[in-house]
């Protein structure tokens, strides 16, 4: 079994920074079948709306982790779109050219439909970078200004059909989120976060197809044994499992198949 974990925070609220912590994580993940791991950054260490310096330090820290095991980790560039088009462009170019980051990570600075997302998505299209958007079912109200409901993230993907969008957190998107995603082929849902609720993964596969679901753990908030166990313990075929755990992410990240 080969696994690509598309959603991790090896350093979270500054914990996990030591070389020994990272080495242990890599060794145990490999033993579990994980062959590549996407590092999204310590995204909440400076709150929801970090400034440009804080963003750069978070991305530098991601690069430091990637450098420890470059054949295992892939970095995503964490952004605060509210800092404006020029700041976003500068950071993305710095991280893609300097660190070989493979995607963009958006958290809780703004809703996915905020105007500041337009330059982010144009940049993603130009550089062919997938965009991973934190998503959680959210009722209309003040929280929705920062947190994206599945309806918002799916609308973003519809507005930019040339960008591959990863809608995070299947369980938190819920059945309604799965149904929102129907027919939006440039959007996949990751299995990260929340407890291992039964049946929703099978439902997502039945509604969207196994090609539209990717595995993510959201470690350290979640235990990788649990997040993997929920996929392995679901009523899916071996072929569906392989797509979710590995092949979809391999395609999305444009990784060459193993020789």
């Amino acid at each position, binding site marked *: 079994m080969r696994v690509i974990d598309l959603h991790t925070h090896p350093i979270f609220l500054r914990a996990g920074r030591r070389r020994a912590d990272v080495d242990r994580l890599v060794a145990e993940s490999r033993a579990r079948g994980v062959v590549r791991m996407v590092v999204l950054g310590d995204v909440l260490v400076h709150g929801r709306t970090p400034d440009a310096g804080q963003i750069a330090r978070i991305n530098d820290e991601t690069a430091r982790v990637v450098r420890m095991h470059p054949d295992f980790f892939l970095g995503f560039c964490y952004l605060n779109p509210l800092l404006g088009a020029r700041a976003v462009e500068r950071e993305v170019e710095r991280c893609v050219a300097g660190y070989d980051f493979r995607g963009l990570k958006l958290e809780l600075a703004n809703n996915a439909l905020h105007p500041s997302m337009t330059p982010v998505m144009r940049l993603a299209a130009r550089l062919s970078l997938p965009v991973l958007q934190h998503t959680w079912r959210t009722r209309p109200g003040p929280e929705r200004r920062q947190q994206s409901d599945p309806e918002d993230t799916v609308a973003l993907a519809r507005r930019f059909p040339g960008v591959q969008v990863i809608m995070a957190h299947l369980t938190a998107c819920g059945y309604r989120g799965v149904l929102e995603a129907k027919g939006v082929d440039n959007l996949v849902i990751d299995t990260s976060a929340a*407890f291992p609720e039964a049946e929703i993964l099978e439902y997502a596969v039945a509604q969207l197809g196994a090609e539209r679901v990717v595995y993510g753990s959201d470690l350290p908030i979640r235990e990788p*044994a649990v997040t993997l166990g929920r996929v392995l313990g*679901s009523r899916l075929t071996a072929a569906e499992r392989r797509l979710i755990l590995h092949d979809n992410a391999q395609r999305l990240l444009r990784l060459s198949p193993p020789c």
Partner: protein
Amino acid sequence: MLIDTSAYIGAWPFGHLPARSAAELGRHLRSHGIARALVSHLGAVFAPDPMPANRTLFAETRRRPALVPVPILNPALAVWSEHLDECCRLAPALRAVRIAPGYHDFQLDSLRVSALCAALQERRVRLIVNVRFVDLRLDYFALKIQSAGESALHDFLRAHPRLQPLLSGLTLAELRTLQRLGGRFVADIPFVEWLYSIESLVAQGAQTRLMFGSQTPFFVTQANIAKLESALIPASARHAIGWRNAARFFSLPGA
């Protein structure tokens, strides 16, 4: 070998969870290597009277020694002690009773809860307090259910120092807080999650108070089995959490 302290039959009205009979649950758990389970009927959670669901539970588990029936009582009802009497009649070797604050209309510091605790201690029946059944952040949007908070649980433990309930559904943070505050309780593991959670709890000496629970049918059964199996802990701690603590705590025969 595993003893599951949190498994349920019956239907849950939200989500598309399997609504299993006792026979179906028994087969399902056996296929996952779970030898024994404490089982409650979810029909007792939302019904105005929990006893019809409890009677179904006793009837369905009667010839299934692998499934230990745990009725859910509602201490908000004036007739709770008659319900307890009936449960003891239907299951002469009753091991435990569940209560569900947040779902039933009572507070943990109410007089009726105190009377229930005294009655259970007298009969040597264990109390399980369900702190939550599901992740309440993701519950059906129109529900306003709140879990029993850490301070209410701590006050409850202090008010009943000899009771030692099983607190079911604690998160890792809640478990750590209650451990720090002191008080006699045991806890199950389905909602305990963080990288290396079981390992860190065992390192702090919590292996005597933890018990395996799968939270079937809410959670994928395999997920919490994998949590326990993958934890880097001594075999003795794995056995303690996996079955030995529960066998001793609930005096399960033949375990």
